């Protein structure tokens, strides 16, 4: 559906994108994640054809965004950051304006407006001037504008920024609902957002892709899944630290709190190998009573920080 090849974008002195490539299949809900200034917005602006890249190419439905700009834009619905809308129009007028430019049949327009207003929940505000709407409603009007032509692809730049917690939850639900039928790219620097709405994450950092995959894949690829919390019955004659250190793949063993008859340990293993079986077998072999064994995953937040702080 969307193919991005080796995208480079230079602003006057800054390189905003530095060789970004990815492919997005139909029906995926992809979250661009990254700190402010990482290149998320630039990447979106290039995909929508608003600006062009310094080098590299973008294809949407096998069409080049530069050569077939109009055709590509027909297939995309785009909500820029902060939902910039004409404040002097009402949502109804504005959506009618966008519908006309989207080539929607004029008889069809009122129906479309009612329908999309229902989806994003602005039915009761359709005739109030946009300038007087709250940020949350404006964001919804922006989303309605992006969906009025029922596009195959939706590109949403920070759709929840500036919203209050309740509005954020509502907006996420709307996006999740939309994502069932369409390809969605959204950007955010807010982690719970991607885990709540996306089935794929692309972490962009300093103009490059730092990680790309499902939340699970990213967790296991970046040090998630290599911590084990072990709880065994106390056994005075055994040096637990050196015992567990002997497992191939265990990098570090730390003693945690002990309570009564049990001792807890934290074992750090190498990446990409599950040590749970080895731990269990070692305990059996040494006659230790295993009370608990849990693989602990680094949460995305920590991974995100690790990746983007470097």
């Amino acid at each position, binding site marked *: 559906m969307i193919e991005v090849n080796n995208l480079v974008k230079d602003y006057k002195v800054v390189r905003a994108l530095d060789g970004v490539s990815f492919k997005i299949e139909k029906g995926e809900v992809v979250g661009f994640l990254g700190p402010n200034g990482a290149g998320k917005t630039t990447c979106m*602006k290039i995909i*929508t*054809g*608003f*600006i*062009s*890249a*310094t*080098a590299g190419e973008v294809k949407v439905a096998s069409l080049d965004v*530069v050569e077939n700009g*109009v*055709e590509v*834009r*027909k297939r*995309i619905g*785009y909500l*820029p*950051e*902060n939902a*910039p*809308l*004409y404040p*002097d*129009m009402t949502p109804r007028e504005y959506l009618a*304006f*966008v519908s*006309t*430019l*989207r*080539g929607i049949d004029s008889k069809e327009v009122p129906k479309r407006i009612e329908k999309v207003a229902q989806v994003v929940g602005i039915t009761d505000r359709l005739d109030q001037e946009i300038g007087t709407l709250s940020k949350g409603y404006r964001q919804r009007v*922006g989303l309605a*504008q992006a969906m009025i032509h029922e596009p195959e692809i939706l590109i949403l730049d920070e759709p929840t920024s500036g919203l209050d917690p309740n509005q954020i939850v509502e907006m996420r639900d709307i996006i999740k609902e939309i994502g069932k039928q369409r390809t969605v790219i959204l950007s955010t620097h807010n982690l719970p957002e991607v885990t709540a709405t996306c089935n794929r994450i692309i972490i962009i950092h300093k103009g490059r892709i730092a990680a790309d995959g499902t939340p699970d894949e990213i967790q296991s690829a970046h040090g998630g899944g290599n911590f084990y919390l072990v709880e065994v019955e106390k056994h005075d004659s055994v040096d637990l630290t050196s015992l567990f250190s002997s497992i191939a793949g265990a990098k570090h063993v730390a003693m945690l709190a002990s309570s009564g008859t049990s001792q807890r340990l934290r074992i750090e293993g190498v990446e990409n190998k599950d040590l749970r079986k080895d731990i269990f077998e070692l305990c059996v072999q040494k006659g230790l009573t295993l009370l608990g064994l849990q693989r602990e995953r680094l949460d995305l937040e920590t991974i995100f920080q690790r990746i983007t702080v470097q």
Partner: protein
Amino acid sequence: MIRNCIAIARREFYAYFSSPVAYIAIFLYLVLLAITFFFKIPFLLPKEDFFAEKEASLRALFEWSLLLFTVFLPAISMRLLAEEKKMGTMEILLTLPVTDVEVVVGKLFGAVGFLLVALALTLAYPILLFAIGKPDLGPILGGYFGVLLVGMGYLAIGLMASSFTSSQVVAFLVAIVVCAFLTFVDRIPEALGIRALEPLNAMSFSYHFRSIARGVLDTRDIVFFVSIIVAALTIAHYSLSSRRWR
């Protein structure tokens, strides 16, 4: 193509009347015209005024309009693109399936619609003239046609200035300078007393306007205004699409 231009022009046209700026501009324009008409205030004007020569014509009115337009129309056109850039609404507009040409042409015609409203409100003067005398119809029609062409030229230049910047003030000032230059350039040879500069007249708005306002349609005058409008729109278009340059 046409459908998109009309949609954009309509939106611009209505946007004018949703802000007080439009009403204030039209009000000022009409008041200043009325002052010249009824009180014979001669400043900035050629010696004659309406009744001085006892002729039933609107010459002074048109001349005065020309002057007012150098300030009034840049104020109308300054927002066309600069405001959209500033507010970011440009990003949605230009990612709709419209071409940059449609945007530029649509915006110009939205502003021209506004100009037509302002001109329509001055029709009271020819009506008055017909009521009290027997004016010559040719110069009046020619005058209106000429004023319209000049106005479209100024608006196109204003649109061009608006495409350079996201600051409406800058767009306004640039447009005034260019419009004023093109209006008064025919006075330079006279003022300096250098006859060799007289070819400059050919690029003067007032020179071509007077030619049309005499009621004689000369293709050269029309070609002049059309070229100015097309040139300004072309530059505006280039400046708008420069964001897509590699």
